[in-house]
């Protein structure tokens, strides 16, 4: 079941008005897609945070508009972690949508029991699936992952009707033995050297 977000229509735009809106516990949003006119909306911050906390992607809008939408982008303040703005994309239930989903590792790797370290290189993959069946996240079982082995995007179990958009050869997780660097290797490089100056080299070539 999709999450429900109550929305109100908004006529105000501009930095200072949006700042006041955010101070009142609201979040400015925009709804677009399907060749229809763009709607500027206001969301309740608490409702939105609840949806984002469990990685919801498709929401049912109620109020000023009654449509399903994909949360396309969420803008955050980098330092204060406040939500600044949300982009919503109109979708129909049966429509195919492309979504970037988080990849969560499940289980304990066989390699980690023999001293290996599991390292997740890629945290998100893009899939195409019906809007009505977008999962919150994708789980990757790493129980069989041994030392010096890797799992790729093609190893993911996708929900029914979903296809992988990211490359199936993309390495998602590897298991290696830990490498402890030696102090000799750290101090071996030369110090005090100056970098090459590009412009000077060109001038010398001209002469």
């Amino acid at each position, binding site marked *: 079941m999709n999450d429900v977000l109550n929305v109100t229509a908004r006529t105000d735009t501009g930095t200072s008005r949006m700042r006041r809106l955010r101070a009142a516990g609201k979040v400015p949003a925009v709804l677009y897609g399907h060749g229809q006119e763009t709607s500027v909306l206001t969301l309740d911050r608490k409702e939105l945070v609840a949806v*984002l906390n469990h*990685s919801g992607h498709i929401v049912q809008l109620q109020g000023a508009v009654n449509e399903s939408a994909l*949360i396309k982008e*969420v803008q*955050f*303040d*980098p*330092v204060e972690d406040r939500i600044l703005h949300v982009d919503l994309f109109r979708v129909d239930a049966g429509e195919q949508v492309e979504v970037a989903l*988080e990849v969560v590792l499940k289980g304990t790797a066989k390699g980690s029991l023999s001293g290996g*370290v*599991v*390292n*997740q290189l890629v*945290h998100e993959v893009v899939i195409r699936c019906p809007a009505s069946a977008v999962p919150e*996240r994708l789980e990757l079982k790493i129980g069989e992952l041994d030392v010096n082995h890797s799992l790729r995007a093609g190893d993911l179990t996708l929900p029914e009707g979903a296809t992988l958009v990211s490359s199936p050869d993309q390495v998602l997780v590897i298991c290696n033995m*830990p*490498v*402890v*660097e030696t102090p000799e290797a*750290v*101090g*071996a*490089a*030369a*110090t005090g*050297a*100056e*970098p*090459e*100056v*590009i*412009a000077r080299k060109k001038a010398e070539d001209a002469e």
Partner: protein
Amino acid sequence: MAMMPKRVKHRKAQRGRIKGNATRGNRVVLGDYGLQSLDGGWLKAQTIEAGRIAAQQYIRGEGRLYIRVFPHRSITSRPLETRMGKGKGEPAHWVATIRRGTILYELGGVTEAQAKICFARLAHKLPLRVRMVKRRTH
């Protein structure tokens, strides 16, 4: 060894000003946890290296440390007991320009508790106020 560019267009740079928040490099993208700067300033190459060593000594090859900043800017200084004038000094060291919100280091493959201890050790080496942040899913 402290980081430094391999090739530069100009050996010396003007000091500039550091204004506002970071608009790039302000999200955790490579690991699971990040160390975010809450101040703007310069971070010396030697300081970045000291932080790396402090973190590596704690994680001991388990997990992975990513350094997200690079010292691109040269800082010049004048020799001691010399009179003013006679042009700009010679490059003395290299710094990374840090804006508020920049992610300095990232850690992957460790638990949250380990990351917290590791970043606390690392933060002691830094001249900036920092905080630990997690990867965002949206």
